[in-house]
């Protein structure tokens, strides 16, 4: 077991805060992606297409 000495709480809080912020960032980006693709699918289903005539969900 790794010993962190008398300031263990400061060290653990630092790593926990970094992990929490990174997880929130990843979660926000994943949810945003799902939200945008869902809205594009809905628009696609309602018959709204891009000027190129391709589906809004198309990659190249």
């Amino acid at each position, binding site marked *: 077991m*790794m*010993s*962190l*000495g*008398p*300031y*263990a709480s*400061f*060290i653990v*809080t*630092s*790593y926990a*805060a*970094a992990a929490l*912020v*990174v997880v*929130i*960032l*990843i979660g*926000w*980006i994943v949810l*945003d*992606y799902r939200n*945008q*693709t869902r*809205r*594009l699918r809905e*628009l696609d289903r*309602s018959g*709204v*297409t*891009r000027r190129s005539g391709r589906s*809004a969900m*198309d*990659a*190249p």
Partner: protein
Amino acid sequence: MSLIDLANPTRFLALTARVLPWLAAATVILLTIGLYQSALAPDDYQQGATVKIMFIHVPNAWLSMFVWGVMSIASLGTLVWRHPLADVAAKAAAPIGASFTFLALLTGSLWGRPMWGTYWEWDARLTSVLILFLMYLGLMALWRAVDDPSRAARAAAVLTLVGAINLPIIKFSVDWWNTLHQPASVMRMGGSSLDKSFLIPLLLMAIAFTLLFVTLHLAAMRNEILRRRVRSLQMMQASRVAFSSAGSREGSASNEVGAA
């Protein structure tokens, strides 16, 4: 694929779809190795185990400035070359940069309490990084305040380039002023003053966090392109509805004229 090809958002989306899983995997692997090496690093003869905060604080501090640097280059792309993805890159980077800056301030504060005896000191380094954090928040607010992305992009690009003046101030604040913060110990003339047992885990963590930024940035850029696609399709849909309702009104009006 050249840089010019990437100016096409559709090609960029195809590239991110191919690259993102590999980047995410490389980030996880490097972060795992970096954390393992950080755990194995010995205690410092003066700071004890609190030196482990360095492995998380320094990469975040580096990235807080690096991300603003990326946004500054993207801003030049918006104002000078009018690259279609430049403002997408700048907008997507801001919340990620703000998060890294927040972590640099928070972990620095948690490191400062046991080592300096205080969480916060209004010295040049800490204050200039706090200003950087506030500038990130200001930039994010600006993006949200202006509805039209191209108008917001130009204003944000000017603000970003003006804010870039803060980067050398942050970097050299420890040399120009008498501060509580230690001077540079890794990137300095004459090489690093850190022992290898600290330097290797620190560099590993710095590379891992940089990869994390690249991964998150590409994913956030992809989201921003999709958001703009949704916006333009919704505007198209709204104009179709307006056009068809105007057409039906005209039709009923001419019927009334005919009946009269």
